[in-house]
């Protein structure tokens, strides 16, 4: 094969890679894959019957609750894998899996322990869910949950909640919820419900829901509140739900909020006496919104685009990357200059010298990409250093490098700290270029990209495979034309504050925001907070006074936001300088306390105890509880004032107690509290319900006629108590019929066909109503069947 033929073959492969997604089991969004039967989602096996999405955005803090119910159309129990791709800065805050009517909430555990418990439970056929985040170091936002078992012809209900701090750019806040599965897969919701509520202290305008499929109905739209909802049936999830709104501020502003309330000490904290003492310190958050109305520079732009063409970019990522390239190039004026480098294991430039952004050169650049190869691993430092080398050849003026990549280094230097340091050193000593980054995919190493851009006044953003790329690309283009707010710092007039972290990991630009969270030691009226920075040639100095309250639990999200910022800071530190035991211990502690997944923790929705909801009759008063092996004592607190320790039955691996329901206890549903102690002496509480039902349902039957002819159809109408779960009619020798509720007739109806060959005579029709406790009431009616 000649070199030309080889290139042609690679070119074809490249195009195929771009436009034909390769089948794989990477992260899907809200998809349950029946792993027992395959690696892909299949609606003929598991279909999405209900999806509820509840979004609350409270002053840029988004809290999203997702409920999904999947139906199993297969006869056997299945094991599944539930994948959910969060927004890149999203953080799981709750997770639950349902077993029949029992909600099993997720508990954050050390990851190794969670996986061990999961193994034990699945082998015992108990239903756990294990939610892990594969690589938060790399900024991964793909979560997966093992789900077992999904009952044959049954359904599986999953709940997930995450939070996200929405950035502000161009005085616009954007929110995106992943609804669309990765390309190549279809997901359809038999019922889709979306509720959206936006609250903002700063007036909001121009609220837009960028969605064609989900036509949300606006319920309320004021300057401080926006509410909308959507209900639909058989909705194809072909796009994400995107929302944007503008913040209406006249100039730059600094807003601050605080929170202080007694700290709840978790069982985990009690392992260490040093942590068991409640920390009374408060939390604060200060957010600067910059509106300096900086004008665009009119000087010619110099842009070098560094495009990742390694094999990890296959599929959607490459489609997005090429689309981004087209947009970047299209934004250039003919007076601007540009260059292009494709990098994988090596770095290949379009040209050794910068090119004017003429139509011809742009076409040449696009052809260069299409004629290129998708190949090998990702040598990030080599690409960056080559970019600096070629950017140095731009004329004097701003030199901008745009890297479009998933940025997961697999070749060359792999340690991210070294990559950041090498780039920083080379850039500061020579080119002094600004680096802009577009991270692609759920597994993009956003942390690395953010570190790279931070020291060179750049900007990084990222998109999921399924997300619309237009706005992030536009955001980068806007910022290339502007200076960023540099040398940002937080200061106060006293030493009351500590452990203050920026939660805006990107550099701030005019029209954007920058937020710090931290803690304060003691209540104080009118503490002065300041955020300073430099934009272009002038200094921005924003100050505000904040009452640091003795008690105020209004902004209850602050402890968690701070904890997340603290954990992110520790992770970054370890990412750059290696793991430390004390950091890991603190990360696990904070993650357990505030419920978020880290590389060291996982949610496991395995119940400490699994009290099967059961119907208890006075003659069957047994409470049975299944727990994992770590539990050594179980104690029940009954609502009628009795407390009982449960005994462990070794043979059945179950805790059991027989309780005596007082004779005066009326039929009904009651709550029972379980107190569990594990081998380490840690305590856990769970509340379960049980039903006492000592009465059979009341039954009344109504027949239009008791005399029929063979071949007729007998219509049976019956009313029974609400707790009836089975209502049927039978005649000896004939197939029983089930009576079901008719809204039109306002009664239960069943139709019993009388066979034509049924001999004439007298027969007995028996109608039976049975409740969940198997109490039965029945009625017998004599029928006369006449010959046809």
């Amino acid at each position: 094969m000649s070199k030309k033929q080889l290139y042609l073959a690679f070119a074809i492969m490249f195009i195929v890679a771009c436009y034909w997604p390769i089948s794989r089991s990477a992260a899907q969004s809200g998809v349950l894959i029946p792993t027992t039967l395959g690696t892909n989602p299949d609606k003929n096996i598991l279909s999405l019957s209900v999806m509820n999405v509840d979004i609350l955005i409270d002053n840029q803090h988004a809290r999203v609750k997702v409920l999904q119910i999947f139906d199993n159309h297969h006869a056997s129990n299945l094991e599944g894998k539930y994948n959910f791709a969060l927004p890149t800065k999203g953080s799981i805050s709750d997770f639950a899996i349902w077993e029949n009517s029992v909600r099993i909430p997720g508990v954050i555990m050390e990851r190794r322990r969670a996986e061990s418990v999961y193994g034990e439970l699945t082998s015992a056929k108990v239903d756990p869910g294990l939610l892990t985040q594969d690589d938060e170091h790399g900024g991964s936002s793909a979560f997966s949950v093992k789900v077992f078992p999904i009952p044959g012809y049954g359904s599986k209900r999953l709940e997930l909640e995450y939070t996200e701090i929405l950035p502000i750019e161009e005085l616009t806040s954007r929110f995106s919820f992943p609804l669309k599965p990765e390309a190549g897969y279809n997901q359809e919701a038999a019922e889709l419900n979306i509720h959206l509520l936006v609250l903002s202290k700063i007036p909001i305008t121009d609220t837009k829901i960028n969605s064609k499929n989900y036509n949300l109905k606006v319920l309320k739209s004021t300057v401080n509140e926006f509410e909308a909802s959507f209900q639909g049936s058989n909705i194809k999830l072909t796009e994400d739900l995107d929302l944007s709104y503008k913040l209406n501020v006249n100039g730059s502003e600094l807003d601050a909020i605080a929170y202080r309330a007694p700290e709840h000490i978790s069982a985990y904290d009690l392992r260490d006496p040093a942590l068991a003492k409640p920390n009374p310190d408060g939390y604060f958050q200060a957010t600067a919104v910059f509106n300096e109305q900086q004008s665009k520079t009119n000087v010619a732009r110099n842009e070098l685009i560094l495009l990742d063409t390694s094999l990890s970019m296959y599929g959607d990522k490459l489609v997005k990357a090429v689309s981004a390239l087209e947009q970047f190039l299209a934004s250039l004026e003919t007076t601007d200059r540009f260059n292009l480098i494709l990098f994988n294991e090596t770095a290949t430039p379009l040209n050794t010298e910068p090119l004017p952004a003429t139509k011809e050169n742009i076409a040449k650049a696009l052809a260069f990409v299409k004629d290129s190869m998708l190949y090998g691993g990702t040598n990030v430092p080599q690409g960056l250093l080559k970019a600096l080398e070629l950017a140095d050849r731009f004329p004097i003026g701003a030199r901008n490098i745009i890297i479009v990549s998933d940025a997961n280094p697999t070749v060359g230097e792999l340690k991210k700290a070294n990559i950041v340091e090498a780039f920083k050193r080379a850039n500061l000593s020579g080119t002094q270029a600004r680096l802009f980054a577009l991270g692609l995919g759920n597994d993009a190493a956003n942390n690395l990209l953010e570190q790279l851009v931070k020291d060179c006044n750049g900007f990084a953003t990222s998109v999921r495979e399924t997300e619309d790329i237009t706005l992030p690309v536009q955001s980068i283009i806007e910022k290339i034309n502007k200076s960023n707010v540099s040398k940002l710092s937080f200061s106060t007039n006293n030493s009351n504050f500590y452990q203050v972290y920026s939660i805006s990991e990107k550099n701030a630009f005019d029209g954007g925001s920058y937020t710090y969270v931290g803690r304060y030691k003691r209540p104080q009226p009118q503490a002065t907070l300041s955020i300073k920075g430099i934009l272009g040639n002038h200094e921005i100095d924003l100050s505000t006074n904040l009452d640091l309250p003795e008690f105020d639990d209004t902004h209850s999200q602050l402890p968690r936001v701070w904890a997340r910022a603290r954990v992110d800071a520790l992770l970054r530190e370890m990412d750059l300088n290696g793991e430390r035991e004390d950091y890991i211990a603190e990360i696990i502690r904070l993650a357990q306390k505030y419920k978020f997944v880290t590389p060291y923790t996982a949610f496991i929705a395995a119940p400490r105890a699994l009290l099967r909801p059961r119907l208890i009759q006075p003659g069957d008063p047994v409470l049975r509880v299944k727990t994992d092996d770590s539990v050594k004592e179980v104690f029940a607190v009954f609502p009628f004032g009795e407390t009982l320790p449960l005994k462990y039955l070794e043979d059945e691996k179950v805790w059991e107690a027989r309780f005596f329901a007082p004779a005066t206890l009326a039929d009904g549903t009651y709550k029972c509290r379980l107190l569990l102690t594990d081998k380490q002496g840690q305590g856990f509480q769970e509340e379960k319900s049980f039903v006492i039902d000592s009465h059979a349902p009341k039954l009344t039957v109504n027949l239009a006629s008791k005399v029929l002819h063979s071949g007729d159809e007998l219509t049976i109408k019956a009313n029974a108590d609400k707790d009836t779960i089975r209502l049927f009619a039978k005649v000896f020798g004939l197939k029983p019929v089930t009576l079901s509720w008719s809204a039109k007739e306002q009664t239960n109806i069943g139709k019993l066909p009388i066979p034509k060959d049924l001999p004439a005579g007298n027969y007995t029709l028996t109608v039976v109503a049975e409740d969940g406790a198997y109490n039965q009431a029945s009625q017998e009616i004599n029928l006369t069947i006449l010959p046809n």
Partner: protein
Amino acid sequence: MKALNNKQKIIILIVLLFTLILVEFIHIHNRTSAALLTAKTNLSEQNIIKYHKQDSSPLNQNISFLNSTQEISSITLFQGNYFVASKGGLTKYSPTGQQLKHYTSLTGLSENDLTSLTTWAGKLFIGTRTQGLLVFDGEKFSSYSWPNLKTEAISALLNDNSRLLIGTFAGGLLEFDGEKFSEIKIDGNRLKAITSLSHNQQRLFIQTFDNGLWVIEPTKHNHFTINQGLPSNRVVGVTQLDNNLLVATDFGLSIANLDQLGNSQSLFQTLITVPTVSSLVKSQNSLIITQDNGQIWQLPLTTDLNNKYLKPLVKTDSNNAHLIELENKLWLASNKGLWQLATNKLEAFSQTNKDNLSSNIISALAIDNLGQLWVGHFRNGIDIYSPLGHKITHLENDYLREINHIDITPKGIFVATSQGLVSFDSKLHSQRLTKSDGLLSHNISSSYTLPSSDNLLLATTKGLAIGKAGKFSLLTAIQGLPSNNTYSISSIENTIYVATLTGLAQISNGKVIRTYKDANSSLNSNWITALQPVNNYLFIGTYGGGVYQLMPNGQLRSFVPEIGRLAVNLNAIFSDNKYLYIGTLTGLWVYELATQHWNQVKLELPSSNVLSITGNNNYLYIGTTNGIAKMPKDFFNQHNQTESTLESTQGQIYE
């Protein structure tokens, strides 16, 4: 008389004016006070509760009770002796622990299950589980009940100087001034599920089972629950520590500053997380904490109050363990008795009665051919008593704990339990039948042996098992049983009857030949719980549908017109061919076969909930939720003549 000058006139006028104002002020004050008093009186009268007082008198001297007095709820000092309340009555002890006297419902109590004690106005006040408040003057008992108030247990009593405070589980907090009862409400609302009352200076602490802690002060009140930081809403102890309030719940200890109680900031901080905490007491230099299982912990006050410094002190293997502070001594009360806690050791307070029942809930009774009484406990195995009433042995293990039924046959003694069937030979060697023997369920409600067959019949939750060890077959709803949930078995000649959840099955030659249900008979409840053949009749007990008699011709006679729709407990039926005895939620019902006359026995029982019955030629043994009544057979002859003693004595209603 010298004329007054202007200055003097002005002074006199001012004095007059002030006098008038003062008089008017006093007048207004008096009127306001009177109006306030009237309003208070009216308000108080609204909360006044009608009560019923009854002086008790000893019942039939020939009846005796067998029960457990080990399950201790409270202790107090009265007239120089200790009085201990238990589920088995009230016991008087000398200061050295010598038992002086034991009181039961036969000797004056309104019931045996006692919950709380205190002394007030020179008398001993006693709370009961279901029968109101008792008062003892050292000689005789009187009882108070409230006909219009469902209190359930009197769960707490407190001597509050001029008044007696009475905490109830369902009827709120009551106040007794020696003459009348009134209910104390907070903002017009009833206080629910009170478990303990205590006070410290001006503060009254009201602990509840599931509704946190109330703190009542003269001018204000506060309510604390998990919303204010308590680890759980079941509060089991309160104590003050300097200026802090320490609250123990069954999930741990928390603390709050007393000065800030009631402020929105005053939230509790968790100090210690320990499940099943059951009480908290402050001793000299430490806190003493108990867990329900008898584990006692010490937490020195000289250290930080957290789990690290929690030191195990001593443990006794028991349940419902809790500390009581009395006369500067600490007492540990539990279901296994009473101890004094002294110098980190537990010392038993008194000699244990070896003939005590192992528990008071008696689910099965039988008498073997040696005349020994087999007592099956609801969850504590089996006690065996000699004919003279001495406990011979106690049998309990993982498989012989929850006893459903005891069947004494010439082929052996068969005990149906929730964990299989255990059979005993004459030497008490046991053998257990389980799923490995072909049973589909371990939960056996009852067993039955046919005289003409070697086969065992077992009523299980999966159907009727017929066979022997290793070879059981199952008769289920598929074969025609009304339900797979079977409870009782009986036979008349070769016909077997099986009680099920949804009707009665008649079986002949291994086949269901007929069923009796509400749809095809006069049964008005399908849940059949007990069967007893007498001659050629089968008596049938139902749960909530009364008692029936199955005639040889297949007709059912209902006793609902005579005795109503009784709830007959599982297998609580017995006959000596003269009487038929039926155990129900409302006492023992006795049917004289010759006269076809019914009587109810209730007062003479330790509890009106009768779970099991057996008898011999001389005595009838009635197992209840609170021990066993041993009644001579002639009691029923006398009883028949006097009708029921239920209404034999009438008390007085007070308003």
